[in-house]
């Protein structure tokens, strides 16, 4: 008996020793950095997924023909210059003297190979639709440093997308299995891959042979921590240097911590409500659409549901996107006017409608839906809530069977013309339009505008046309009811003296971060 107690006491003593054996080790060495992210990278195949959490990692190891800086401006990358020769041809001058991490030279063959690779469906590439638009990649006058890329149709945003189409080494990609490619990336980027322990960390080290300016951070570690409170504990204790994604519920706690600097910026993603206009549905009447818009108190949603961490939106594109029109304003919140409009449209007592939305995709998505339901109830519209996991929500969207639904979107290549096709064009399987038009919204005038805009070669003319489209869609037709842009937030551990400007696309590129 005494012995037993003795054993247990000793055990606790040993345990105590362990605990006392060290204060928490501060993340890393002098020129190293440790970043905690919410979503783990899923693959090292740069064409394998287009999720920003993965592209964020790939952007350090690989490069595209072009590059975007923190503000989203398109700059030269593996191509030093680019121009659109005609509707179907894009000409690029390639950078000389670039080497892949395995020592291979970067040539036009790699560009051709990488573009061809996009066309192969899963498990090779998720950029299938973009790849299929590429017809050929040829050298100009047999000069291997100037290439013409021909597209099958006019793709006005072709160059705009090239910062996220990464170039792979032809030789090592052809000879290795998919499993190998998916775990050992070989790029031309400023950082080389070191080690990836899945679920734990991914280590990068600086590429000494990088053609560009040498980054000040030499070693980087990316640690996924999916559980929000643990992620916060990690930054509060200084175990990581930068943390991406502060949950809005815990924002104040972090902001009040003296060791931590909080950096925020409006996110590119717009959260909006899609609304069916097929004949027979109440919202086929423009007065009903306007009434529903005016019954939604976005200010209240931002304040109460988003805890102040969102920005009201009046349209789907965000300011840097081609087609954004700053003159568009939100309709004012006016429940009285809304009731009058409903009565005029023949619904003095309102109607019933089902609101579908994901509950695990956007920041507080299910709670936003609940708030919308309560606000619409005030003007007599009875909302039946139908929130579900995204795995079940997406099939509903692609089936186009929804009447009223919440979704978020931003265009990765900053072109509202590209997004309008799947989001707002009538569903047209043959032409490939309306893929994410969950409520099968249909308007022939808008369809025509979308199709016409793709044919315009002059970027200025096209931008005006897209602005016109956006204004018409938002003010006249009320295609969708915009809610807000989310907020991107980062916590930085002050002690390290990190200079960090968040990117519009939420990628964390270590070359853009410096240490004082």
């Amino acid at each position, binding site marked *: 008996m005494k012995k037993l107690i003795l054993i247990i006491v000793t055990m606790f003593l040993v345990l105590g020793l362990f605990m006392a054996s*060290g204060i928490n080790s501060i993340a890393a060495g002098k020129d190293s950095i440790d970043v905690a992210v919410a979503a783990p990278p899923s693959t090292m195949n740069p064409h394998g997924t287009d999720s920003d959490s993965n592209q964020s990692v790939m952007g350090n190891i690989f490069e595209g023909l072009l590059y975007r800086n923190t503000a989203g401006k398109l700059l030269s990358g593996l191509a030093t210059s680019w121009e659109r020769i005609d509707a179907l041809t894009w000409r690029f001058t390639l950078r000389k003297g670039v080497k892949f991490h395995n020592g291979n030279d970067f040539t036009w063959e790699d560009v051709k190979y990488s573009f061809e690779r996009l066309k192969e469906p*899963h498990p090779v590439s998720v950029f*299938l639709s973009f790849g299929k638009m590429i017809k050929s990649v040829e050298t100009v006058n047999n000069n291997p440093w100037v290439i013409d890329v021909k597209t099958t149709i006019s793709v006005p945003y072709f160059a705009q997308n090239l910062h996220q189409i990464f170039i792979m080494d032809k030789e090592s990609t052809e000879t290795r299995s998919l499993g190998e490619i998916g775990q050992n990336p070989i790029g031309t980027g400023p950082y080389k891959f070191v080690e990836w322990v899945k679920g734990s960390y991914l280590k990068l080290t600086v590429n000494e042979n990088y053609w560009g300016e040498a980054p000040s951070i030499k070693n980087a570690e990316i640690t996924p921590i999916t559980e929000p409170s643990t992620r916060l504990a990690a930054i509060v204790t200084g*175990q990581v240097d930068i943390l991406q994604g502060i949950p809005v519920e815990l924002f104040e706690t972090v902001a009040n911590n003296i060791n931590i600097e909080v950096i925020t910026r409006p996110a590119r993603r717009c959260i909006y409500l899609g609304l069916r206009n097929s004949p027979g549905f109440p919202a086929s009447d423009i007065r009903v659409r306007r009434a529903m818009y005016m019954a939604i108190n976005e200010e209240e949603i931002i304040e109460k549901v988003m805890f102040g961490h969102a920005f009201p939106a009046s349209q789907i594109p965000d300011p840097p996107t081609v087609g954004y029109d700053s003159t568009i304003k939100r309709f004012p919140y006016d429940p009285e006017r809304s009731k009058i409009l409903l009565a005029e449209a023949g619904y003095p007592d309102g109607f019933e409608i089902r609101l579908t939305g994901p509950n695990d995709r956007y920041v507080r998505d299910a709670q936003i839906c609940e708030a919308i339901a309560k606000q619409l109830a005030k003007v007599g519209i009875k909302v039946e809530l139908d929130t579900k996991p995204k795995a079940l929500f997406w099939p509903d969207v692609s089936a186009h069977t929804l009447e009223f639904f919440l979704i978020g979107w931003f265009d990765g290549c900053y072109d509202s013309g590209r997004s309008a096709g799947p989001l707002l064009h009538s569903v047209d399987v043959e032409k490939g339009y309306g893929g994410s038009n969950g409520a099968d919204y249909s308007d022939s005038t808008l369809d025509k505008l979308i199709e016409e805009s793709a044919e315009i070669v002059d970027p200025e003319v096209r931008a005006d046309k897209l602005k016109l489209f956006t204004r018409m869609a938002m003010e006249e037709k009320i295609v969708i009811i915009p809610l807000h842009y989310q907020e991107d937030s980062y916590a930085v551990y002050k002690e390290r003296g990190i200079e960090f400007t968040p990117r519009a696309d939420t990628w964390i590129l270590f070359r853009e971060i410096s240490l004082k």
Partner: protein
Amino acid sequence: MAKCIITRLTQGIIVLLVVSFVCFTIFQYFGDPVLALAGRYATQAQQEEVRSKMGLDKPFYIQYSIFLKNTLHGDFGLSYLAQIPVLGLILERLPASIELAISAMLISLILGIGLGVIVSLNPRYFINRFIMAGSLFGISIPTFLIGILFIMIFSVTLKVLPTFGRGGVIKVIGNWRTGFFTIDGLRHLILPAFTLGVYQLAVLLRLTRGGMLEVLREDYIRTAWAKGLSPRIVIFKHALKNALIPVVTMAGLQFGELIAFSIVTESIFQWPGAGNLLLTAMYETDHPVIVAYVMITSILILCINLFVDILYRFINPKIRYE
């Protein structure tokens, strides 16, 4: 004995078949992986191309039979999300889960049985009543909350233990990494192992105490005391050995659960185990990972149960399997 093992193995194969069938049936109704894999700008025609290339356009029974055939060849396919062979993906993560489960098991066995014995000897002592009340907490507080509380207390407030991950690990063979041999690795293990083990600890404690209280009243124990045997021999050799039988069964059954259901603990502490992988896979409709995970853990649990059955026979020779 051999006959018993053979019966158990056949039963096991049937269980695996049923499990995989159920998995496959559920997938028919749980999300459509093609939507994500074709890309968000894919046209319907391109989605169909991806679907047919993946064989997902084939009827259910054909998909299932292809899966069975591949599985028998040891090929669980590629992860949708990672485009990496699933088996390697899971085997790489399994050591972390097993280490966590073993540590949690050790903690719950040693503390559970130890405290159970102490409490049973003097059930009326205040401190022992206090332990019993504490064990109720252990059973009723959700793992999730315990984990967060531990982090708040030991990492954020006291700053003595790390919040997440496995810390320093050593590569043993291939992808098998262990945290057992570094101080850093062990320090990282403490919080998650206790979090995962608390429930088992409480259960085993109550089970041991109950068994002991019953056995201590038996005539042969009274005889043993009367004979003047030392308390050590009476308690451990005569009483505990007989009180342990239900404890062993319970512990065996729960070890499988510790491996298979450590998902919550793993996600709180960002423990890079298989449970964490499963969670991401479910979230992202990564069907091949889910089905392989379920199959592998089923096999593990079947093996553990078989092992417990055999162990049982040694502890209590009265049990026959015929």
